[in-house]
């Protein structure tokens, strides 16, 4: 027993010493590393900026470490850039060992390395990486899929639109990321979205309708007006929201009709959209909805009236049966 006590004391003392040494070593190593990175970054930063700005620059002989830091610095700059500057970044990276290393890592065994590679390929802006990233969209790990979706959005190639909407629909990539990635594609995604708006799967139709509200134009009005009559409530709501976002005057009639939808969140989206469209003819129905509908739909209706016809709102709020939503909207109008 005494021996056991002695061994325990020694073991714990040794463990304490290990942690203490680890703490000291870690701290000094990290401090050194931080300083070295700062120095390296300072050295390569002018080259990174010159490359991004399209200045003719002759790179000096760089060490492996410096090349890696240059790649990292350019990658970081790339996150805030679009257009020509990104094109220059893509041309710089194409064929470099840094690009080849990330492509190889994307096929590697370690999950975190695959995910990091997928992420960095988006910053490298090489369109050649698209096929590999599309493959990574089907990776067994969620982090890798998410990073690939993000990078495909950054690369802005139209062939990524349909796969991105599909991962958005089947939920294999977080919705916020997949949605953002499709938006990042911009008009390049429109053709695919217009096709998907007529897909058999109601979830695909719903996502396509919502995205058209962000990326589409007046040419999409007819498609979206038709979608407001879709059998799926999700599609009807998303289409109503999209018409509002596009401020489609042509959609006002369909939206007013949607105020009578049996599903409350369709009514909610229709009311909100009518506020964005500015449809004065819908004000009496919006006022009724603000008095009688479920909480969120009523609030949306009251706020829509505040946008479309402030005077009508103030009059209605003064009536005895106005209800809390008209009171709130009227008070906010006065703030």
């Amino acid at each position, binding site marked *: *027993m*005494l021996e056991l*006590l*002695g061994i*325990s*004391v020694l073991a*714990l*003392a040794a*463990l*304490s010493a290990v*942690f*203490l040494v*680890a*703490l000291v070593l*870690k*701290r000094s190593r*990290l401090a050194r590393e931080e300083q070295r990175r700062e120095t390296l970054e300072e050295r390569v930063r002018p080259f990174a900026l010159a490359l991004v700005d399209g200045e003719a620059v002759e790179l000096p002989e760089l060490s492996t470490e410096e090349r890696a830091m240059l790649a990292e610095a350019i990658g970081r700059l790339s*996150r805030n850039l679009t257009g020509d500057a990104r094109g220059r970044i893509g041309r710089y990276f194409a064929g470099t060992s840094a690009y080849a290393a990330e492509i190889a890592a994307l096929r590697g065994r370690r999950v*975190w390395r695959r*995910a*990091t590679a*997928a*992420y960095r390929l988006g910053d490298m802006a090489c369109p050649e990486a698209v096929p590999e990233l599309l493959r990574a969209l089907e990776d067994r790990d*969620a*982090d890798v899929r*998410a*990073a690939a979706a*993000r990078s495909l*959005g950054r690369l802005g190639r139209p062939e990524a639109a349909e796969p991105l909407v599909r991962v958005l629909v089947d*939920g294999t990539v*977080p*919705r*916020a*990321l997949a*949605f*953002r*990635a499709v*938006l990042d594609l911009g008009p390049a995604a429109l053709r695919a979205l217009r096709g998907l708006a007529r897909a058999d799967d109601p979830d695909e139709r719903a996502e396509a309708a919502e995205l058209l509200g*962000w990326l589409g134009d007046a040419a999409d009005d007819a498609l979206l007006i038709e979608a407001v009559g879709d059998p799926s409530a999700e599609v009807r709501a998303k289409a109503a929201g999209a018409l509002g976002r596009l401020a489609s005057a042509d959609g006002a009639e369909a939206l007013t009709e949607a105020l009578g939808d049996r599903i409350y969140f369709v009514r909610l989206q229709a009311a909100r959209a009518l506020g964005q469209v500015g449809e004065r003819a819908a004000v009496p129905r919006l006022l009724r909805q603000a008095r009688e509908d479920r*909480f969120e739909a*009523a*609030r949306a209706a009251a706020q829509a009236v505040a946008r479309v016809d402030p005077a009508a709102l103030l009059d209605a709020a003064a009536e005895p049966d106005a*209800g*809390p*939503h008209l*009171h*709130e909207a009227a*008070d*906010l109008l006065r*703030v």
Partner: protein
Amino acid sequence: MTVLYDLAVVIAALSLAYFAALNLVYLVFTAIAWRSLARHLRARGHAADDEVFASPVTPPVSVLVPAYDEEPTIVQSVHSLLALRYPEHEVIVVNDGSRDGTLERLQDAFDLVPVRKALRVVIPTAAIRGVYVSRRNRRLWVVDKVNGGKADALNAGVNASRYPYILAIDADAILEEDSLLRVVRPIVASPDLVVATGGIVRIANGCRIDHGRVVDVRLPTSRLAILQVLEYFRAFLIGRVGWSHMNALLIVSGAFGLFRRSLVEAVGGYSSETVGEDIELVVRLHRHLRERDEAYRIEFVPDPVCWTEAPESMGQLSRQRRRWHRGLGETLWRHRRVAGNGRYGVLGLAAVPYFLIFEFFGPIFEVLGIPVVLGWWLLGDLSGVYLAGFLVIALLVGVVLSLAALTLEEHSFRRHRDGRDIARLVRFSVLENLGYRQLLSFWRFLAFYDLLRGRRAWGEMSRKGFRTVPEAPLPPA
């Protein structure tokens, strides 16, 4: 006499068994935490926070701030909350019948005007006296109500909130700019699965604060607060990471917790029947979801930071710990059916029994164990060598666990940049085992008396306010 002697031997044996088991659990959790945090750190290389921030479908959040006599810190806190980097959020301060100038300070700083706000009365609360919106920032709402306690104030906030997720935060807390974006990450990744998340709470005493932001992380000058810094490292970086890994997190800190609003409403909101409304809500959510066989996760996220003011006097710390322990006891009693019940999976078979035996009854073993073992030694039945051996082991285990947490912090987040701060923390890793831990156990032991007396009060917690950069004026909200 024999009976008493036998009882003492039993208590001593139980105390030793408790001590061995508890530390074994801690060591296992330390190993789990190292692994989890290493994975978390690697994931930072591909975290798409900018994309989540820029996504129009990132879920909007209502930030709820229950405030009772928070005059010294409330304006700074609200500034920091309004400045959070997040695509869409509102801040709802619930003034819970404060007796000081909390409401007036808010009115002056944010130009509040009364609004007849439509409130969903999903959860009953004490009477609402008025609702205000800020003319300077329309995302700030203030609900003024009759005092009903923290849980009641949070419920009023839930009723007033517009968005599908609520973030409950203490009025004396300061969130870092990206904290909300980070704490919402698991929900963005799995919105159908993750129902609640919590971030890390760190101690702001000693730090320099500028316009609601921590700009310089320093250790407090108060020794009592430094001891709490270490304690928080252990609790969050080891305890919560471990339980979260097992999906059996019982505590999402009331100072910084994000919840799916519809679920909070479904279970009836925060309970005013306990002073541990945060732990009670989380246990109730676990029960609600497990009884319905629903897949879910409640997660701890280690990098979003909430800075808070720690008590610096013995009296305040004692009251805080007695209150926390009372809250734990009330929660465990209310959900006693869960303990050891296989129907609740790891919650019933591991988490609740652990909290019952080690956290709730722990102080009994710790407080009674020491005199009994000493008595045993005085009677000559325990050799001095064994006694010394056990005491040294107890000290070393405590030191190992604190150093492990400190190393973990240094390996991962490195908030304390000044090497002298780390050296002080190492010194306190030893010192805390020579009195502080025993004192905490004693205070928690006293909570049994409070429980038996049926004490319900929260106790006073006076605020010093944060150490701020004085010269510059506040920016427009």
